[in-house]
């Protein structure tokens, strides 16, 4: 158990460091599209891998405050909101303090709590999560597509519009997969370990 935990921790650190090193950081931050749709999700993923390394005692303590996964979802949602602001994406590129905040908060406050909370989320909470994710993709995607102004001062307008298209595509893909699963897959009212 300890060995597996160590491996996961090592893998997370390696991925995190690779993302943090200048070549990958500059490549992914050169475009608004890759910062939002590759860098931020990869950072969250690195945090999610930490979840199985969390000692069971901590997990249990957290579960006492996390009925149905609601608290974890609130934390992950709240932590992800600032990183949807054009201003925050700009500031992360412009200076290391905000960049550091991004590299710390996205794995630890979005990826990790989400991975810990996902198994506890019941059908209803997961439904809320999915509908809100799809809606956010469409809202932001539409905004970036139609805005005649550059919302990030570090990125070009065509980059912003490309990100808008991608967000609409991602929203549509999640929706279609979910619809497919709802029609063809097996569902129980209590998807997670907890019931709501």
């Amino acid at each position, binding site marked *: 158990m300890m060995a597996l935990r160590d491996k996961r921790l090592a893998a997370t650190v390696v991925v995190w460091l690779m993302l943090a090193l200048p070549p990958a950081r500059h490549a992914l931050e050169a475009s608004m599209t890759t910062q939002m749709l590759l860098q931020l999700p990869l950072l969250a993923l690195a945090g999610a891998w930490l979840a199985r390394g969390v000692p069971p005692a901590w997990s249990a303590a957290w579960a*006492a*405050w996390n009925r149905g996964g609601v*608290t974890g979802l*609130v934390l992950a949602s*709240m932590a992800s909101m600032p990183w949807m602001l054009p*201003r925050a994406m*700009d500031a992360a590129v412009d200076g290391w303090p905000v960049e550091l905040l991004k590299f710390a908060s996205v794995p630890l406050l979005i990826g990790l709590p989400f991975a810990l909370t996902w198994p506890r989320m019941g059908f209803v909470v997961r439904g809320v999560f999915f509908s809100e994710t799809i809606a956010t993709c469409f809202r932001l995607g539409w905004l970036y597509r139609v805005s005649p102004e550059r919302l*990030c*001062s570090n990125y070009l*307008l065509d980059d912003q519009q490309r990100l808008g298209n991608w967000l609409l595509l991602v929203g549509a893909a999640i929706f279609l997969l979910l619809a497919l699963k709802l029609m063809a897959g097996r569902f129980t009212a209590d998807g997670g370990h907890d019931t709501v």
Partner: protein
Amino acid sequence: MRVLRTLLASLILASAGIAVLAFATDGFRAFTTETARRIAVRTHPVALPDVELEDSAGRLFALASMRGRWLAVDFIYTRCMTYCTILGGDFAQLQRSMAAPLRQGHLTLLSISFDPAHDDPAALADYQRRFVDHGVGWIAARPLDAPGLARLKSAFVLKAIPDGLGGYVHNTAIALVDPDGRIVDYLDAGDAQAAARVLRSRLAQ
């Protein structure tokens, strides 16, 4: 019990999240860097950096020597066919509508190039001629060295990024500098009448 604890924890996290969001957006007012720089100078004016400039006649002068009058400052590069054309048009209009204070030296219009390698005095003079400069109260200039340009960019939160076509995309606004040499406001480009109204009320202070 677990329900109450979850409710409590969620409420605390949601409040903290909203507080962070409020902090990150200046109280839900600034979602973009451009709005943020405008709000920031209105509450905390930024001192002009002491930078050496060269004007379209090849004369050298220090930005600090412009104190004692109001300045309307814009940033341009002379090859620009988009935003800078709007800014150049604004300054040409302001030259007419603000003729009196410009002549009396209460106000000066200052266009600074952020592409000093290309924009030599001749290019700057051409740029002004394109907008029918009347020769009074409008200075086009370039910083003399890279550190000077860097200080200007930092003080004015200026962003100029390559557009992939050999030019730049840059944030566009008219910066207002008070007689004490502090940046106190940014005005929208493309509305010279509104800019003139603001300038008149500032000059009347």
